[in-house]
């Protein structure tokens, strides 16, 4: 389901320029997390499609969201489908 209303994404608590929500970015990041835990490509694509659709639906009722919220919502949905990938997705900024 495509939601046409645009939503601003506030990055790093406003320290970086706000940008439009991009569903493809969510898809790519979730897909990369799935591939990182060695999920087959087909599974990774399917999971990334489901999660990016759910995130798109969630943001469609909001005018602005933070990048942190996007990551949290995406990882919550991902947790049900691929827990290992969700762990990496959620903590990737806390590795270093």
């Amino acid at each position: 389901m495509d939601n046409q209303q645009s939503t601003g994404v506030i990055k790093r608590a406003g320290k970086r320029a706000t940008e439009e929500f991009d569903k493809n970015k969510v898809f790519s990041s979730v897909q990369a997390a799935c591939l990182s835990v060695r999920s087959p490509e087909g599974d990774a694509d399917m999971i990334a499609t489901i999660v990016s659709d759910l995130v798109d639906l969630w943001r469609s009722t909001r005018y602005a969201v933070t990048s942190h919220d996007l990551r949290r919502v995406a990882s919550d949905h991902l947790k049900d489908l691929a827990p290992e990938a969700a762990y990496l997705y959620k903590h990737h900024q806390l590795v270093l």
Partner: protein
Amino acid sequence: MDEYTTLAIIAVAALAHASFQLSISMLTLLSSHTIGKKNTHNNLLLRTHAFVIGAGVMTLLLISSLALVLSYIYSATATPLFIWIIGCGLLTGVGISVAIFYYRKEAGTSLWIPRPMARYLSSRTKSTSSSAESFSLGMVSAISEILFTLAPIFIAAFSLVQLHPIWQLVGIAVYTIISLSSLIVVNCLISSGHSISKVQKWREANKRFLQLASGALLIILAVYIYVEHVMLAVALTAAGEI
């Protein structure tokens, strides 16, 4: 002090070096991004191996350079007691700091390094796309850790200076290989197909133990060197005067 005792000190210092986690975090990130971008397994192997070799080369250069500098000081000074004292101070200071501050309190394995630096290293790791870049990244990781690794490198370098030249080469090899051992283990796990999330989960679950172990190792080494080199020398001098 015989060669074996000196080599044992070098090995313990290298073990403390190996327990530091910045390079391991960068290797984990590098592997994660490489696999996530649909690169082949060969590409993954090339990049992770290049990273480990880069870190090894930089460690080798650091310990050799410091040993060279210390060898000039050693030959120009009648007694190297003050260098041992500096080394003990460094080990104790870094050991206490590591035991208390090394990891941040939040979830994950983020380290007590400046956040802009962590973000820069993270983005560089993410954009690494060739084995040559991975090699450089490995070298940078060894330099970025220098705040923590300076103390064990200093002690190992000064121990090396007192060995016969042939034993010095052995000592450099021992230090480099042992200090890389944790990176080599993680590299083998990733190369053999283990899940990165499992490696990362293990690191997160055991981070407090690793932090305490490396801090304790540094402090124990400091105490040993202080007793063996400083107190003994002072006691012998005092006995000679009597």
